């Protein structure tokens, strides 16, 4: 529980642009990331990875590697003699170290720890793996066919109807009303098929960790992750350890975007350390990052929408086929839930499909599953508006979800910001400045994301000098140390500079869920406010004791306790600093803490406008202007909020225009490097203009909503709509790379 009602108030710290606490460390190179620490006697760990897309592992001979000088441990699946309880963790184990089969190009099949990287490399070469190469499949539509090569037997859930390959693990359905009837009522119906390629989060910091396990079975792990509690829990299970014996410390994180929400190297490094008795450091190369860590699902989506001449949508239907890599995930379901979420529909029906293929396990990437769904739905919505001769924003306004709307995925919305977002876009100079010139086109689209809450623990210490040490348990991926310090300062009534927030290790706080689902500013913020209130209660009690009055007769105003009620004015207010100085005489150290499984995260909507220009001779696209509108509930630190909005938009631009996983006929990834998996550089991007809206989230004391993910949802569709207009041909396949766009232009010209 702990839904906390929003209360309107005058903020002093929240909403200002205070200096960032991590700024100096980052610009001076002092911040310590996953690969930046060492331990005495440390070994280097490396993984041996499958060169095949799909192969049975007949045997692994590690004897030659083990006999090499400098090799201290070799690990294969045989070393992990556990069967995790949940199917999720069984998959994780299969992913970090292949069992009977290698399921994708780059799948780890063994690992070594040696005294140097060169010895470790030589040892990898000395490991002999006997593979029986099997037929493979990497395309989602192919993988669904009954005769496709099968990855896992017996994993299909009952929700999947007959006639599909075993690769289809699950089907989920959402919606209400009667879509057939809805389509009958429509004056116009548009149905289209869309595809998107898999993309990678592209964080610049490769996965890295340092594991140390002593002979007594106690272990320490340092790693870059979005959720060190999750790493601890998972690793402990995979290594058959008691959770309390493993302490995980999260490093500064060099980008994650969802991709660092699971384990890859960590259990392997721990196992190597256990076997060798030495600290083991592991770092992925960029090629390993691309071949083996978290891409998104690639998708094949069909959308059908009907509308009346007056612009009212009568029915929406969608089939979302998502390829999740080699293991189960729920991206298809998320797509099926999010696609139509911005609309108030009488009749809507969506189906999400979870399909496995011989590709790396899909990981979350900022609003997982939603961008591809929005691409498909918003493209058809855009086309419908065009066919009806309506302004794209007016058309959406007419059909927009609002407070009380039954969402396409089930629940009924409380107060939401979609209409405000749409109206802000409509009033913005960008929308109202005509786009002139040949080969140019403007696009518009909206996007939705749920946002999460979840398990959260915060501890807030009042130091003797009146400063505050705040501990949270969520790696700071978007400025949470600043935001938490600001909310603590706000609540306590002290200057922001008096608070320092750190990310505590797993032994120092209660459980904290992963930094994902844009949950941190919301949930950790909530817990911080509550921890501050807890500390305030204690301080009020101390003041009451000093004054010899009742606790209830003390108020907390502007960072000080003051007598209230009948005692008002009887004593001088005592500041936090004064109370802190007397703490040891009044009952000991003062600290507040709060633990909660937070609910009421509050969904968020965004809208984007893009102007593009297409070069008809090369198919190249230039983004000329870009504006992002998003509801932040309350922007605690506007710079960080803008940063999230810009960051999401530019990742979406990369996804829409250029980024893609390219597999050969052999099932091998063709472009595992930044030169060929090309994320945007400065010249690929326009300035991203941002407009923050603040429609308070009723479920947070300050009205905060998560902002980290929604920004990546609209850009795929926004750019597709813009480029389609500029090129004069509807683009239904991403990325719209120059070759693809030029071919489409040529085909359209006939």
């Amino acid at each position, binding site marked *: 529980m702990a839904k906390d009602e929003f209360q309107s108030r005058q903020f002093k710290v929240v909403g200002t642009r205070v*200096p*960032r606490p*991590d*700024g*100096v*460390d980052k*610009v*001076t*190179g*002092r911040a*310590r*990331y996953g*690969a*930046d*620490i060492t331990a005495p006697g440390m070994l280097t760990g490396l993984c041996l990875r499958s060169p095949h897309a799909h192969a049975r592992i007949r045997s692994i001979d590690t004897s030659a590697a083990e006999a090499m000088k400098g090799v201290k441990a070799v690990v294969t699946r045989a070393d992990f003699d556990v069967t995790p309880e949940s199917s999720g963790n069984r998959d994780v184990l299969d992913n970090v170290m292949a069992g009977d089969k290698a399921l994708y190009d780059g799948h780890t099949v063994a690992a070594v720890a040696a005294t140097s990287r060169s010895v470790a490399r030589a040892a990898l070469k000395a490991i002999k793996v006997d593979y029986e190469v099997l037929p493979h499949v990497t395309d989602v539509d192919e993988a669904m066919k009954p005769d496709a090569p099968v990855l896992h037997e017996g994993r299909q859930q009952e929700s999947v109807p007959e006639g599909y390959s075993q690769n289809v693990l699950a089907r989920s359905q959402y919606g209400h009303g009667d879509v057939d009837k809805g389509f009958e009522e429509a004056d116009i119906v548009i149905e289209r098929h869309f595809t998107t390629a898999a993309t990678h*989060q592209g*964080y*610049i*910091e*490769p996965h890295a960790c340092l594991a140390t396990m002593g002979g007594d079975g106690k272990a320490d792990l340092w790693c870059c992750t979005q959720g060190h509690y999750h790493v601890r829990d998972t690793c402990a299970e995979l290594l058959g350890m008691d959770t309390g014996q493993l302490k995980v410390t999260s490093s*500064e994180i*060099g*980008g994650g975007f969802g991709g660092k929400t699971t384990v890859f190297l960590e259990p392997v490094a721990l196992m190597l350390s256990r076997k060798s008795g030495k600290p083991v450091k592991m*770092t992925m*190369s*960029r*090629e390993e990052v691309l071949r083996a860590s978290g891409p998104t699902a690639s998708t094949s989506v069909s959308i059908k929408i009907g509308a009346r001449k007056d612009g009212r949508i009568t029915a929406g239907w969608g089939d979302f086929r998502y390829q999740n890599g080699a293991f189960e995930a729920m991206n298809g379901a998320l797509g099926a839930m999010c696609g139509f979420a911005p609309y108030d529909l009488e009749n809507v029906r969506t189906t999400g499909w979870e399909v496995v293929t011989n590709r790396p396990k899909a990981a979350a990437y900022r609003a997982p599953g939603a961008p591809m769904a929005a691409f498909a739905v918003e493209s058809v919505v855009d086309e419908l508006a065009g066919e009806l001769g309506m302004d794209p924003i007016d058309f959406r306004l007419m059909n927009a979800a609002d407070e009380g709307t039954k969402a396409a995925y089930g629940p009924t919305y409380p107060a939401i910001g979609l209409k405000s977002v749409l109206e802000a876009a409509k009033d913005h100079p960008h929308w109202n400045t005509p786009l002139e010139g040949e080969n140019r086109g403007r696009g518009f689209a909206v996007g939705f994301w749920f946002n999460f809450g979840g398990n959260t623990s915060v501890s807030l210490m009042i130091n003797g000098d009146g400063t505050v040490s705040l501990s949270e348990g969520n790696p700071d*991926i*978007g*400025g949470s140390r600043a935001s938490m310090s600001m909310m603590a300062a706000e609540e306590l009534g002290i200057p922001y500079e008096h608070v320092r927030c750190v990310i505590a290790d797993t032994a120092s706080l209660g459980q904290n869920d992963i930094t994902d689902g844009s949950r941190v500013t919301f949930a950790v913020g909530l817990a911080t406010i509550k921890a501050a209130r807890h500390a305030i209660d204690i301080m009020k009690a101390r003041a009451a004791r000093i004054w010899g009055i009742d606790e209830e007769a003390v108020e907390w105003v502007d960072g000080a306790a003051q007598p209230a009620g009948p005692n008002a004015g009887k004593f001088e207010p005592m500041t936090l600093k004064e109370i802190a100085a007397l703490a040891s005489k009044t009952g000991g150290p003062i600290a507040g803490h709060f633990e909660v499984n937070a609910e009421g995260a509050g969904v968020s909507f965004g809208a984007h406008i893009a102007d593009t220009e297409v*070069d008809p*001779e*090369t*198919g*190249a696209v*230039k983004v000329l202007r870009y504006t992002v509108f998003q509801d932040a509930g309350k922007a605690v630190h506007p710079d*960080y909020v803008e*940063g999230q909005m*810009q*960051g999401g938009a*530019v990742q979406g631009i990369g996804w829409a225009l*250029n980024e893609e996983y390219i597999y050969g006929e052999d099932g091998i990834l*063709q*472009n595992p*490097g*930044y030169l*060929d998996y*090309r*994320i*945007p*550089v*400065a*010249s*690929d*991007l326009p*300035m991203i203009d941002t407009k923050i809206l603040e429609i308070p989230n009723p479920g947070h004391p300050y009205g905060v909503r998560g902002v980290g993910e929604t920004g990546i949802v609209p850009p795929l569709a926004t750019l597709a709509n813009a480029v389609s207009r500029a090129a004069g041909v509807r683009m239904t396949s991403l990325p719209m790379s*120059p*070759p693809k766009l*030029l071919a489409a232009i*040529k085909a359209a010209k006939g």
Partner: protein
Amino acid sequence: MAKERREIRFILNGSDVRLGEVAAQDTLLDFLRNARRLTGTKEGCAEGDCGACTVLVGRLVKGRLRYETVNACIRFLATLDGCHVVTIEHLRGADGGMHPVQQAMVEAHGSQCGFCTPGIVMSLYALWMQSAAPSDAEIETALQGNLCRCTGYEPIFKAARAAAELGDPAADPLEAERADVTGRLKAMADGARVTVSRGEDRAILPADVADLADVLAKHPEATIVAGATDVGLWVTKFLKPISPAVFVGHLSDLRQVDAKAARLRIGAGASYTDAEAALARAFPHLGPYWKRIAGWQVRNMGTVGGNIANGSPIGDTPPVLIALEAKLHLRSAEGTREIPLEDFFIDYGKQDLRAGEFVEAVEIPLAQEGVRHAAYKVSKRRDEDITAVAAGFALRVENGVIADARLVFGGMAAVPKRAAQAEAALKGQPFDAASFERAAQALAEDFQPLTDWRASAEYRRLVAANLLRRFWAEEGEGAKARLEGV
């Protein structure tokens, strides 16, 4: 034989470093991070793509100290002999506090996760030294080789613009150290051949060009390494041994770029950056083209000689140089020879380079009056991308008739190649749209390009023909050659 020294000497930030045990494939980045624990310099790719490892390397150019950004991940340690390496840890402001660039980055929120930040700070620092109040185009160029996944670059641009107001390059501590560092580097330069090794692995830095010829005569199997922007990846990505490696980047006589006797001579060891100004002066159409080769750091390291010698069909310089009728100078202990550049490329992976021979220079005739030139690069993105199709065109038009045409393409065949049929379709024809249309059609007979992940055969064919049409549109209709956007 030249005098031999068995250690490399350089300055790392403030201190002198001498190392005898160095393997050919040891990289500067590993040295910094592992041996020196200077972990401010990051590794994001080890392939020269992301710029997280950007550091400054200062070297003496005609007695003057010049600092340039390089990718530490593919810069071989041995090549730092006689250089000053400056890492993020060495940066400070005139008052000993943060450097103006660092301060600007903090204030403008130039970092989110911050992993790219040290590299970006170093690139912006180098830019600030050159141009304290940079234009947006200059900032864009400075950041070509730096990837940031978080910010969208906008805040970084703000920081680059703001840095000018926070400090004066003339008061920079590195500026104050200049005389001292110059003196120390000069004292290190003893004109000796340097050989360092670890175990069997060996790296040789010849004393001069003549010594290079001698070394190669003795070790014809050696790997010649210039800027290492290709060879670096053989080591970090493909794990290939390169020992014995013969480094040539430090040879100032091989780095000369000069215009003499109606020829522009570019030494094989000259980096793209070294060659840029002279080349753009002589051939303005190559100015913008040059800026589209790789990113800034790679251009500070990579050489024209290496771009030719690697024999790649998608190297950016051969098509435009062949169009300019460039000649290649090859040298060995036996002597020198000169061949037309186009003859150097025999087949995929096969060049006219004999055992013990090296590329000494490329020479371009300067007197090209009346010739219309163009250079095009088509890649998925404008900056820091590998070519799908590159083209160099040179056309002599006399009295409205095309007297001569050289149309050279990269990415269309196994080697950089002239389009014989298309050239024939133009020669002797009127300088008009119809001739170009015929040439565009004729291209189909010249090339059977391949499909790969960068582009399909069909795309290459289509854009190659479109480039001829564009050339006509730009030149024929009087517009100046331009190369903005793709």
